[in-house]
């Protein structure tokens, strides 16, 4: 058996031995052990190094508040840093390593920082490392040089870069009553609420329900408290309306009683079950919440209080009673309150020798004195610990007579041998969730603690959370809270009886013993009492300044144990009561929460993928796909050995020479229907739609309310009251919301209904000199000649049995048709058209060729309608109707929108016959060394097979007036400079004779 393992301990299963390693050394423990308890049982005292001074540290606590014993857990390449050893349940094969030490935990070179002592005081870095004002280290250089080393010395564990193979999942849960914490108060609350028929969730951050009942060794209802808790849990398990969540930390209290929790589903397993997540994120919407979150014991602040072997009194009691581990053989106690006597007695019963009890108070009550005498310790009232001794483990301590009235130390110092020192500075209720819910805590001078405030959301407190530290009170408050939360009214039966050690819940108002040496307030961040006083001296006196200047409470434990001692030292320095220093407002999370759990199922699957109906065909036929927003679209259909440019030039050239077909299913499509549909479109578009004949389409432009261009597209009149609007791919959702807003909020009198039909229609655009012949060869039920289907005309017909709608409109500038069919038939129709086109030399083309042909035509897209351009900038002012008001018409003529130096759309031709770059700027005078004087930029560019030139669209100041002049592209980012000619944006077939046929 391990050297410190004892016969007590109700949580561990001695029949099950578990093997694990820590820093490469093999250890054994038992089922139920935490890494902390198992290592402690093996005689390990040194668990970690502190942040700043790299001081050796042992276990302070046995729970979630642990600041010292942080480890990294390894699973193959996957690293999980900064886990408190007190929260790691051991399993076979567990590999844990210590952190923030080099080369080893025992010999850490950075411990040299301790010599810096007084220089490395709070905020020292604000006062130095500024470097010289001149020379090579001027400016920020010197600081960055120092920072390089500071960063490497700082930091705790190391994160991995290997992708985590684990699954995380999210659950949305609803309940009438959420009970947080399963100590006696929480168990009673859950039971009471469940008995009322309420849907109850009971969340407990430990693996076992029961809280303090698991280790207090009191008697409840005639049973040892741990057995009573087992029985209560068993009863709850029998309720269909109760969900028990062990290993679940409720970490966030958000609006409308939405609480966030993290369930550690398989952290403690060597091999998680198939499909089992590592963590589960619970978003719980609770009718009401019972906060039974207990309290944290506080350390005392005295020189050497951080030495390994100094621990919180209740933590030692937990190790003995819950885990069967004795943290020391010769144990001393230092306290300012009664609760710690029970802890000392527990250790005595577990087999330790209690060598001394030092209490800052001059006198003890009769009950407590009796407890103290049972420990057979030397009782030293009116005494304080002024120093500890030892290196990586405690060997002894020094005591002196202490006067509580003035904090003075008198008399000779006395040395006592001990290998474990228990300390207790009283208790702070765990009010974090209540504070997150928006309320301000109230200071209780009696309890020397912040107590929960009046609820601002629907929660009820119970037990130690409210400052009622006795189990009897917890049981009574818990049941009352559960009943009230469930809206219950039944008369309760008698409460379970409790036999517990006596004690006054109020501690003496002493947190610090001022003696020579470093007294730690925040253990992990190495904030000392002197640091707090320095902050005071320099004026950083409000609680937030104290935190920020000294970093008190900013470590991974978030000040769970250091908050009140720190405030008390500041209050004393200020000569003010604690609440005047301020109240810390706690924010989520209560305890650190894995990022994987928060991403949950979106880990590895950030956004949905939108695929057109013909997607698989494109992939099967050699398309290179391009991610555009959520969509995937063919970029090119490359032949083997082709570059991207060769492919799109081939596709565009073939389209202009014979025919090409492109998938346009991603265009936004909105059905606009109703008696007022035409009137609505007149208000939405800058141009007129009420005059559009049924069976015809029209190109339309929309502005925003502020008069800037918003979106464009064609809208088809399918019937008197029936329109089909198309939008750009990127703006489909925005336009839909824009239309809905106006119909619902601004013009509810219009009888119009809008429906997004983007996903209902598949679309293909087929264009080129042979397009009509191909269509004629595929379509039945309608002619497609110039009379039946004139420019902007619409017909209905069939393609191999599938009803289609065909509109003759052109983006490519060729004679072209858009063919729409039900989405499910998309591939069928597409394949039919491709097959019919084969004898004519039809090519499939992708976005690159589409873009090339639109640049040649000078059409605008999102690169030009970028939210900052006006209709005039884009030479679309011919579309601004003067006969009617429309959205944006009142605002489009404001001073800033009509000024002469605005950027206007132009075309560019490279005069050096080299490719242009998107995002290159335009200058009048080239200065490659010091680029300046930008007059605009390229929005889109390509090699134009039709022109045999490298061309671009650009937005240039006073653009139209510059037609026919020379300028230069200036692209210092890619070192591309050269002459261009500014021309009209309509490069190709400006009068449209090709598309009109």
């Amino acid at each position, binding site marked *: 058996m391990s050297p410190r393992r004892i016969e007590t301990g109700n949580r561990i299963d001695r029949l099950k031995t578990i093997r694990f390693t820590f820093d490469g050394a093999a250890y054994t423990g038992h089922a139920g052990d935490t890494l902390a308890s198992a290592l402690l049982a093996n005689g390990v005292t040194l668990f970690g190094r502190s942040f700043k001074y790299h001081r050796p540290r042992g276990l302070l606590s046995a729970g979630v508040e642990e600041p010292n014993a942080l480890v990294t857990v390894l699973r193959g390449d996957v690293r999980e840093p900064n886990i408190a050893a007190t929260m790691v349940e051991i399993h076979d094969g567990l590999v844990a390593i210590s952190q923030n030490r080099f080369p080893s935990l025992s010999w850490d070179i950075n411990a040299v920082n301790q010599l810096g002592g007084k220089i490395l005081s709070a905020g020292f870095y604000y006062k130095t490392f500024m470097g010289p004002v001149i020379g090579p280290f001027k400016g920020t250089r010197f600081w960055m040089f120092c920072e390089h080393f500071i960063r490497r010395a700082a930091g705790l564990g190391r994160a991995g870069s290997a992708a985590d193979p684990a699954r995380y999942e999210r659950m949305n849960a609803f309940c009438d009553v959420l009970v947080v914490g399963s100590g006696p108060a929480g168990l009673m609350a859950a039971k009471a609420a469940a008995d009322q028929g309420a849907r109850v969730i009971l969340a407990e951050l430990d693996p076992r329900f029961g809280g303090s009942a698991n280790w207090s060794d009191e008697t409840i209802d005639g049973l040892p408290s741990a057995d009573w808790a087992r029985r209560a849990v068993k009863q709850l398990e029998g309720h269909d309306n109760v969900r028990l969540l062990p290993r679940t930390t409720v970490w966030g209290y958000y609006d409308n009683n*939405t609480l966030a929790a993290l369930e550690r589903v398989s952290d403690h397993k060597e091999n998680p079950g198939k499909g089992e997540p590592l963590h589960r994120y619970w978003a719980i919407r609770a009718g009401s919440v019972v906060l039974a979150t207990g309290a944290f014991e506080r350390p005392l602040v005295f020189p050497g209080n951080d030495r390994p072997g100094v621990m919180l009194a209740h933590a030692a009691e937990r190790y003995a009673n819950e885990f069967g581990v004795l943290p020391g053989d010769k144990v001393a106690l230092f306290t300012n309150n009664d609760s710690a006597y029970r802890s000392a007695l527990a250790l005595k019963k577990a087999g330790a020798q209690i060598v001394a009890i030092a209490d800052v108070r001059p006198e003890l009550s009769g009950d407590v004195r009796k407890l103290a005498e049972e420990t057979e310790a030397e009782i030293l009232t009116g005494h304080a610990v002024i120093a500890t001794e030892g290196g990586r483990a405690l060997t002894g301590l020094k005591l002196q007579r202490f006067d509580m009235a003035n904090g003075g130390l008198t008399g000779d110092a006395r040395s006592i041998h001990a290998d474990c020192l228990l300390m207790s500075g009283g208790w702070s209720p765990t009010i974090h969730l209540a504070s997150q819910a928006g309320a301000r805590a109230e200071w209780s001078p009696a309890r020397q603690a912040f107590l929960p405030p009046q609820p601002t959301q629907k929660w009820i407190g119970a037990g130690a959370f409210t400052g009622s530290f006795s189990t009897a009170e917890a049981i009574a408050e818990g049941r009352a809270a559960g009943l009230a939360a469930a809206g219950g009214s039944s008369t309760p039966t008698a409460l379970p009886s409790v036999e517990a050690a006596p004690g006054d819940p109020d501690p003496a108002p002493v947190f610090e013993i001022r003696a020579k040496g470093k007294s730690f307030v925040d253990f992990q961040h190495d904030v000392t009492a002197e640091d707090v006083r320095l902050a005071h001296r320099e004026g950083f006196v409000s609680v937030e300044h104290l935190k920020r200047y000294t970093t008190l409470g900013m470590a991974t434990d978030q000040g769970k144990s250091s908050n009140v001692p720190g405030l008390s030292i500041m209050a004393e320095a200020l000569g003010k009561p604690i609440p005047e220093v301020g109240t810390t407002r706690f924010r989520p999370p209560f305890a650190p929460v894995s990022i994987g759990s928060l991403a949950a199922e979106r880990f590895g699957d950030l956004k949905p993928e939108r695929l057109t109906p013909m997607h698989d065909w494109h992939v099967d036929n050699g398309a290179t796909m391009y991610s555009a927003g959520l969509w995937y679209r063919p970029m090119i259909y490359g032949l083997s050995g082709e570059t991207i440019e060769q492919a799109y030039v081939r596709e565009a050239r073939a389209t202009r020479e014979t025919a090409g077909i492109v998938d346009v299913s991603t265009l936004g499509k909105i059905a606009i229907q109703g008696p007022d549909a035409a009137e609505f479109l007149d208000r939405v578009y800058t141009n007129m739609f009420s005059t559009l004949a049924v069976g015809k389409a029209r190109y339309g432009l929309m502005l925003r309310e502020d008069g800037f261009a918003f979106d464009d597209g064609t809208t088809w009149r399918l019937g008197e009251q029936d329109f089909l609007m198309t939008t750009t791919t990127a703006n489909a959702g925005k336009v839909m919301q824009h239309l*809905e807003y106006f119909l619902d*909020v601004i013009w509810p009198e219009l009888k119009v209904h809008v429906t997004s039909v983007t996903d209902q229609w598949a679309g293909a655009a087929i264009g080129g000199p042979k397009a009509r012949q191909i269509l004629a060869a595929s379509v039945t039920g309608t002619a497609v000649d110039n009379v039946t289907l004139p420019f902007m005309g619409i017909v209905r017909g069939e393609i191999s049995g599938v009803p289609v709608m065909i509109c003759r409109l052109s983006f490519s500038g060729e004679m072209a048709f858009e063919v729409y069919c039900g989405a499910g038939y998309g591939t069928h129709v597409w394949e039919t058209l491709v097959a019919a086109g084969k004898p004519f030399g039809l090519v499939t083309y992708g976005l690159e060729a589409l873009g090339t042909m639109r640049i040649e035509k000078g059409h605008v897209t999102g690169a030009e309608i970028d939210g900052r351009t006006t209709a005039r900038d884009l030479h679309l002012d011919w579309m601004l109707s003067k006969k009617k008001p429309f959205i944006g018409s009142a605002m489009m003529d404001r001073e800033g929108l009509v000024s002469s130096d605005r950027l206007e759309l132009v075309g560019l031709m490279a005069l050096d016959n080299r490719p242009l770059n998107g995002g290159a700027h335009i200058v009048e005078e080239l200065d490659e060394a010091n680029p300046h004087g930008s007059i605009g930029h390229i929005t889109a560019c390509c090699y134009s097979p039709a022109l045999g030139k490298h061309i671009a669209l650009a937005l240039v100041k006073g653009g139209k007036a510059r037609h026919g002049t020379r300028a230069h592209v200036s692209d210092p980012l890619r070192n591309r400079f050269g002459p261009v000619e500014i021309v009209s944006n309509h490069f190709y077939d400006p009068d449209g004779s090709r598309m009109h046929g």
Partner: protein
Amino acid sequence: MLITCPYCGPRDVIEFTYQGDGNRERPEPASQNFEAWNAYVYDRLNPAGDHNEIWQHSGGCRSHLRVVRNTLTHEISSVAFARGDHGPRRKMEGKS
């Protein structure tokens, strides 16, 4: 935060799109009162307290809702359809 849509019941805020200050009055389409247009497009009450605002249940029934919500506490005191014919169009006191 939960918003109780009159059609769909209480739903998480993630289903809704915020459409801003509900106190803004859009001038008549043909209005030449540019000050009124500017106020409508650019100026906001932005109170610290109850705020009359428009939300769209974009992940649900797509109705626009007129919501009175406290900007200090996020507490919602009323939700109604923004469309006039679904119920009374609620206006905040004064200040617009």
